[in-house]
């Protein structure tokens, strides 16, 4: 069995009892956590969720509210302007909304022109009832396509 050792200099003794400040910190942190988390969740989720609206519904709501407009592209209404913007009409069969898209190059309009395809435009209705959009998505029966950089066309061609 082992050897005894010589006593060393007196050791440092930390406090036997925990300080009360820790309990206060726990209470403050939990209360603060619940309050701030709730606020963040509401603002983060509330700001990011965009509901789909049909042209009929959009024309009945107040302008300048962020929304997703969903409907069919009216063929022959697509016009590309000198400043790069594109205008076209979207309909749900009951009402038609004029859309001005200023988000740059896109293949979504070509995809939306296919039979059965739907157009989704993110933006807001202006006071003069023109839907101002910066993001377009062609919602096809089998896949989504969106505003895309130039490589998209070359891949589509390769496919």
């Amino acid at each position: 069995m082992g050897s005894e050792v010589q006593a060393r200099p007196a050791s440092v003794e930390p406090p036997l009892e925990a300080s009360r400040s820790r309990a206060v910190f726990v209470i403050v942190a939990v209360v603060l956590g619940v309050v701030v988390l709730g606020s963040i969740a509401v603002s983060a989720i509330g700001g990011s969720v965009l509901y789909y609206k049909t042209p009929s519904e959009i024309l009945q709501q107040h302008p300048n509210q962020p929304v997703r407009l969903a409907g069919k592209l009216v063929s022959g209404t697509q016009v590309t302007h000198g400043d790069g913007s594109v205008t076209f009409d979207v309909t749900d069969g009951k009402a038609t909304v004029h859309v001005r898209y200023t988000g740059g190059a896109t293949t979504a309009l070509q995809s939306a022109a296919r039979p059965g395809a739907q157009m989704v435009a993110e933006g807001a209705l202006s006071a003069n009832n023109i839907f101002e959009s910066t993001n377009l998505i062609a919602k096809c029966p089998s896949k989504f396509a969106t505003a895309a950089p130039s490589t998209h066309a070359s891949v589509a061609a390769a496919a």
Partner: protein
Amino acid sequence: MSSPTSRIVLDAIEKDFGRQRALRRISLSIEQGEYVALIGANGAGKTTLLRTVAGLSRPTSGSVRIADVDLRRAGPGLRRRIGFVSHASLLYPELTGRENLQFQARLFGVADADSMIAQLGELLDLAAILDRPAGELSRGNLQRLSIARALLHAPRVLLLDEPFSGLDQTTASRLQLLLQRLVDAGHTVVLSTHDRAIVESGPHRLLRLDDGALVEDRVLASASVDRHAGSASPLLVPALRMPPKLLGATLTIAAKDLRIEARTRDVLGSAGLFALVVLITASFTAPVGESSTGMATGVMWMSLLFATLLGVGRSSGREHAERGIESLVLSPVPKAAIFLGKALASLLLLCLVAIAVVLLFIVFMAGNAPVHVLGLAGTVLIGMVGLVIVTTLFAGIALGTRLGESMLPLLVLPVVIPLMVGAVELTRQALGGQGGGMGIWLALLAAFDLVMMMSAVATFAFVIEE
């Protein structure tokens, strides 16, 4: 010592596990220097009682006081007075015996770790096993190492749950002699056993439990023979310094996790591989150039989320293999350091995974799209911090439950919804080359991280206690 004695006082302790009552109104007092044997049939409550006195199990009602301090308010000084030998070794199988003891020495503020390890090696005949991974040791050798772990800081109160199980006759005799010498030097020893020969060969007092109730408490005949507790010179006298505070303990625990990972590559292997496979598979479903859509960035963040669940789950699972987490709870370091150390190590590892995932995401799915590099890096860092914090906190809860790892996603996913929404939106903007609108989202994500961190630090100690 600031308090002359380490008397243990149990006042009407009751402990319920669901509808099962494990301890029934136990009240007793154990003086410093007593040598107590705890006996009883299987399921009588011996282990629960010892775990309650050690501070690993919170009593349903009643209180435990050691050195006149309620255990619920135990500070680092009181923690350092207690040593506990459990059924599990409370060691890390991936580390060698020496590395395990050195880690414990750092947590307990033992300045002369090498000298103490050498001394305990001699007392418990550890020479042949100290430099072997604990996971490779036999039951008996692991038990010897576990006893060395509990004695390393020379605790005044030594609680041993069936310490002789698995030991051969020679080692058992060594341990009996060692315990007797510790008692002679003034240490309090409480051990549970089924062996009547052990009860009759040293302990001064016998406690018998039956169905959670204390049914017998008597002085043993052997107590009258040669009892002079505290009169012998100290057997173990480590040079103790202040135990590490929050930062030091956090770094010590993180370094331990990284050392284990360097040896096993468990987290990087599983989480990294999983994230990359998900990403590559998803890339076949989205055309090149679609990286700035919410759907594509959503796929990227889902792969990072599940990689985090997997990685943190593995890391926490290791803590439960031999209940290493309990050695952290028993130590005198701030409980917040356990959370922060685990989270820091996981974050460093999972950031490596995230870098690989994001780079591959850009190559596979972004094409020639402009990238706001600073915004993307900030998003990934803040997003990963949030994911790791939430997952580490809930891993502490989930792995203590019967469902274990499968419970983890169910707990984490609802909480990280705001984080995922923000991270996906930010990544979409960064991959569209837009940095302008990112500030408010980054601030929201940073606030989420801060709030979760505070909540985790505040609640983790409660979460990991039984």
